[in-house]
Structure formats: C-alpha cells, structure tokens
C-alpha cells in the first residue's frame, strides 16, 4: 500500500487565524505528521523565526513548487541534506548583515547544517509592500534581476542546492498593520512580498528557496500575541528557513524521470489536502480538486478571503476545526467512511 500522504496548506498573507502569524500552524502540522506517513507543507506553516520543529516525515515545499507539484508538473525528491546558499540583500545595514551571518554560522556549528559561502546582491532589492482590496498582503521587488544574479552565483559558483534569501524589508514601526499583527490580528503585511521573492527563485532555478525578512528589532510590547511572539525573540528570522531548506525535497521537473527514482513523490499519491474553508482560491487547491485526493476544508481557520470552495466547483469535506480534520484523516487512513461515525445514518437509496 502506498504511504498515506497529506498536504497542509495555510495560504500566506491572508490573515489566517491559525497560521497567519509566526509559525503558529506548526502545532497543526506536528499533529498531522503523527497520523500520516508523509506530510507536505510550505514555509508559512513551518517557519517560526527562531523556532522550528524538524519532522522526519514532513516535506518543506515552497509555494511556487507546491503549485507545480499539485498541477502534476513537478515531483518531489527527498534528500538527506541540501547545501544551502545564503543570499543577502545589499540594502541590509552592516550590523544587521553581521547578525544574519552569525545566525547562519550558528546553524552550522550548533545544528550541523551545510552552507555554501554567501552572496550579497549587486544592488538593493528594494522590496515594496502592498495591501490589496481583498485584505491580502502582496508586494513587488524593485530589482528582481539582482536577486536572480545573486542566486545564480550561489548555485553555479558556490554549489548551492537550496537558496535562503534575506531581504531588507521596510521597518514601518508606526503602522497600524504591524501593531495589529503583533497583537495577533489582521494580516502579516510582509508575507505577500516574501512569497514573491521565493517564487522568483523557484520558478527560475527549480530548486528549494525560502525567505526571511531583515528588520530592525522592535521596541518591547507587553501586548504581543502568543501567535506572533516567535518573531520577538531576537535579531533574525533566519534559523527556521535554513533548517527547513536543509532538508527540503528537490524538485523533479521531468515527468519521465520518475521511473528512475522510486522515492519520488507525485501529486497522484496525495490522499488528502487540508485548507482553510474561506481560502480555496489558490492554484494548488484548484489543481488538487481535479485529483482523487480528499480536500478537507476547515471552517474555524478564518481568513480575510471570502472564497469558499462551492462557487468554484471544488468538492470538499467541510469540518469545523483541525481537531475534526484529524479525525477525518484517521478514518480515511483506516478505510472507514467518516460519516458512519455520526449517530444518524440514513438507509441506502436506489439510484434513479
């Protein structure tokens, strides 16, 4: 029997009540990982700044790669360890840059990660943040060419197999959005731009990538929410990214090569996908809706989006919360129709 494989998606930058802050969907991922053979999820779920929890059966897949995987265009090849290349934005001040280099060195010395020499982009990346009418956070990059040249150097000169980017983000200390975020409300106003940076690298080089923003430390605030508190612990959000990338699966972009790699994972082997009920408008969910995977939509994980599955024609199993989702997964894995676990059960009807 094939390994029971689950995909967990909490879209980035849409104000998800669970997973919209500082790695606060990680407990959900840990629980799901316990009851499946393979969990595929993305940096927004697993990154908690200086907090992280590597799980042997969990695959860290950046969003662009996850979309290609769901569309059955790319496969995933598990690895023991990637050599991670660190790409620093020229716009980062010298002291802040040093903090990030020391964090990277710490992951080598303390965790045994394998990093290449680093690269500084040839121009400031000039990240611009944007909040859309829907309430989602987005962003653009002023110098994407500089980003891609630096990544190319890391790969072709440094031998990097995965890319960790640290871009200087606007501090925006007085903004209401930042205050709300720290207090566990509203949208992560950085997340949309972060996704654009990692998407650019994955699309161009087809290797794992993820991003950590460089920001000046914030003044202490007694009202910080537990959900956002992981980002209050130090000078950098980089450790979780390096840990995630160090074991992120490589992308297989040639469908034919699957026959030569029996450990590779393809979308057709996914048994279930879990997503917030109000945020079903992403590419991956639309692709999975065309597969045999059971899509479980979680009502309690509210978001700023109002895109339920039904108007899009996506068939889902709707559940109240992640506890219920775990129950549906356990029943699915056991080969039990979860509906018979309810007290009321109607008789079979004759098809007309």
């Amino acid at each position: 029997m094939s390994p029971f494989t689950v995909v967990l998606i909490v879209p980035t930058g849409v104000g998800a009540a669970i997973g919209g802050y500082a790695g606060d969907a990680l407990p959900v991922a840990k629980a799901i990982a316990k009851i499946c053979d393979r969990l595929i999820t993305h940096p927004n779920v697993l990154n908690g700044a200086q907090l992280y929890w590597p799980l042997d059966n969990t695959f860290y897949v950046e969003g662009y790669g996850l979309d290609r995987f769901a569309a059955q265009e790319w496969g995933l090849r598990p690895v023991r360890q990637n050599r991670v290349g660190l790409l620093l934005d020229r716009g980062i001040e010298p002291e802040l840059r040093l903090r990030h280099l020391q964090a990277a060195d710490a992951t080598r010395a303390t965790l045994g990660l394998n990093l290449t020499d680093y690269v500084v982009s040839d121009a400031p990346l000039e990240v611009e943040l944007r909040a859309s009418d829907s309430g989602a956070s987005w962003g653009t990059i002023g110098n994407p060419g500089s980003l891609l040249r630096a990544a190319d150097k890391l790969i072709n000169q440094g031998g990097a197999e995965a890319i960790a980017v640290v871009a200087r983000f606007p501090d925006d200390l007085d903004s209401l959005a930042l205050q709300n975020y720290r207090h566990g409300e509203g949208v992560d106003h950085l997340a949309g731009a972060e996704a654009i940076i990692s998407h650019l690298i994955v699309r161009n080089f087809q290797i794992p990538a993820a991003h950590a923003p460089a920001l000046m430390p914030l003044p202490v605030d007694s009202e910080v929410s537990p959900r956002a508190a992981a980002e209050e612990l130090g000078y950098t959000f980089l450790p979780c990214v390096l840990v995630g990338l160090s074991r992120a699966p490589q992308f297989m972009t040639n469908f034919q090569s699957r026959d030569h790699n029996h450990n590779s994972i393809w979308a057709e082997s996914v048994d279930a996908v879990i997503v917030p009920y109000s945020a079903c408008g992403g590419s991956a969910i639309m692709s999975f809706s065309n597969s045999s995977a059971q899509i479980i939509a979680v009502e309690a994980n509210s978001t700023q989006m109002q895109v339920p599955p039904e108007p899009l024609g996506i068939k889902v199993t709707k559940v109240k919360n992640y506890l219920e989702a775990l129950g549906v997964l356990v029943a699915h894995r056991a080969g039990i129709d979860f509906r018979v676990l309810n007290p009321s059960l109607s008789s079979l009807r004759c098809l007309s």
Partner: protein
Amino acid sequence: MTTHFITAEIDLQETPTELQEQIQNQLQEHGQPLRWAVTKIDQEKQKATIEAVVTKES
C-alpha cells in the same frame, strides 16, 4: 525583469480546471504569472476577482 501587481475579473466557469485555464490565459496578457489567487467571488454576477503578481522582461 520587473514585477507588477495586477487585479482582474473573470467569469466563473463550470469546473476549477476551466477556471484555472481562464485565469492563466488572462494573466498572460499582462506578463508571466508568478503568483495568483482568487480573492473574491460575486455569486450574483458569477464573477471571480483575481489578484496576482506577474513579471515582464524589460
């Protein structure tokens, strides 16, 4: 290369697969789609709002 944020409105389709194709086609008119999502649905008008970032070669 440059990156651009765009919004677009599109008719809802019979299936998610058809909708995805329509979204890709419409975004291609603005550049190479990098990241997109349906962010709003108007069921009365049967329209979906798409937000996206596309890239263009300069």
